């Protein structure tokens, strides 16, 4: 035990571990807040679809950056500048708009019935996975393509190479998400519980749906660093589902979900340091364990 503590202390003395920890907790907090609304609105599929889109966008960004660098051989300034911009923003400048656009599109198709919502999600998510993987294979300069792809899908070491700027961006996003949540809490509740009633009383339900989709896209892009694009939905869905098992009011479900998510992220990251397991899947495993514990507790409570 003492040895483990020493190991932990050793790791936490490094600033990159501290940064990873801060960012990890914040992302967990945001995704769980949003998760309750998404699960209850039956929107969790949008989260899942978007994470795949983000993967496709990331591949496109990587390819774009490679191509631009190749093109800038010589004296062409513009491609060089663009490539630098991509590098500096960690490809965010490409990923974010694409994911946002997909979020809005999914929401709109979910509402009109020409292409059923679930089919649209399947189409977009699998499509972007396929195209993304193909692009990376065709153009990537890296020698270790499958390693790169695996890292993007299941969480890479990018969480350990965060710059201060990225930490600041993450903190700003968290403040934004929490701010939106607190300010619009009652409206979000109304829109989640009963859209028709909310509309009838003059709440702009469509606007709030859009807000939810936009925030989802933001969080997914952020969370890709932490757990990888395939595992983001777990971060969104599990804490909310666990909390819903035990708690009976909307507020308590949201608070509990946030607490579960932050604790699981913390525990997951510590375990992954101690046992050198992948960060993303360790966090998600912690979430799964909590989900089953909550299930068992709720079953016991019901029997009594």
């Amino acid at each position, binding site marked *: 035990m003492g040895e483990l503590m020493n190991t932990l202390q050793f790791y936490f003395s490094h600033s990159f571990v501290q940064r990873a920890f801060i960012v990890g907790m914040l992302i967990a907090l945001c995704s769980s807040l949003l998760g309750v609304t998404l699960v209850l609105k039956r929107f969790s599929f949008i989260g899942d679809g978007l994470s795949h889109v983000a993967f496709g966008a990331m591949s496109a960004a990587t390819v774009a950056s490679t191509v631009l660098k190749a093109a800038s051989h010589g004296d062409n300034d513009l491609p060089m500048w663009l490539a630098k911009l991509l590098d500096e923003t960690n490809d965010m400048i490409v990923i974010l708009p694409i994911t946002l656009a997909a979020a809005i599109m999914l929401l709109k198709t979910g509402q009109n019935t020409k292409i059923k919502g679930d089919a649209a999600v399947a189409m977009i998510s699998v499509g972007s996975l396929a195209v993304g993987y193909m692009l990376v294979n065709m153009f990537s300069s890296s020698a270790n393509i499958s390693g790169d792809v695996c890292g993007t899908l299941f969480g890479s070491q990018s969480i350990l190479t965060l710059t201060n700027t990225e930490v600041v961006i993450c903190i700003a996003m968290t403040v934004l998400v929490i701010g939106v949540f607190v300010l*619009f809490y*009652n409206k979000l509740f109304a829109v989640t*519980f009963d859209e*028709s*009633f909310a509309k*009838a009383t*003059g709440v702009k339900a469509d606007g709030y749906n859009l807000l939810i989709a936009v925030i989802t896209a933001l969080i997914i892009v952020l969370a890709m660093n932490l757990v990888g694009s395939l595992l983001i939905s777990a971060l969104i869905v599990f804490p909310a589902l666990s909390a819903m098992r035990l708690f*009976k009011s*909307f*507020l308590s479900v949201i608070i509990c979900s946030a607490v579960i998510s932050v604790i699981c992220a913390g525990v997951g990251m510590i375990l992954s340091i101690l046992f050198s397991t992948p960060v993303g899947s360790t966090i998600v495993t912690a979430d799964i364990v909590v989900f089953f514990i909550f299930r068992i507790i709720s079953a016991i409570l019901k029997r009594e």
Partner: protein
Amino acid sequence: MSEQMICRDVTLGYEGIAVAEGLSFTVSEGDYLCILGENGSGKSTLIKALLGLKDVMSGEIKWVNGASSREIGYLPQQTPVQRDFPASVREIVQSGCLAKCGLRPFYNKAEKARCDKMLDRLGITELADRCYRELSGGQQQRVLLARALCATEKMLLLDEPVTGLDPKAQLELYERIAKLNAKGITVIMVSHDVHMSVRYATHILHIGSHKQLFFGTKEEYAESRLGQSFILSEGGENVG
């Protein structure tokens, strides 16, 4: 009694195709109007139009004497989402006050007091901290009624409120709505059940496929050939 809403030769439809034409009726303060009609007769479109969520294709819906489409306490049909929703009764009833908040993020004292008053009025004060999904169907409808009353006490618009309730709970809900109506709240109810409609309503609006078949008091309806044929042939069963 003063008129609240006048619907004059209204045509409703989607994307240029009319689903109901020639709707003309008035609703006055304290009325209990039942809207009868088969599925697909445009009842739900009419509801949307009354709530101001959908424009009419022609004709007009006019609100008079201080009534407006924003002053309707709406009780929509239950959605699957709601049946296992983790929310306390108080949270749901309070959300009826949302329109009064405007841009203010939280409820003030007056709105909380109003919520308590409505809980009391529907006899669900002791359920206030219970979880919505654990309530019986009848209790859930009372919660939604309380929420609608938080929004307004002028007019209630109920969309097949008794669907899915057992007969005893149905009767109880009808009685409760009748009591609210007796206190002066205008009630508009979309219904399948001719017998209950004739029993509780003051006015009947019967929509057939594409056009209005009848509007008048329930006494006139019971004497009309249309009313009689429906009352006899349906024998208490659902029309739709």
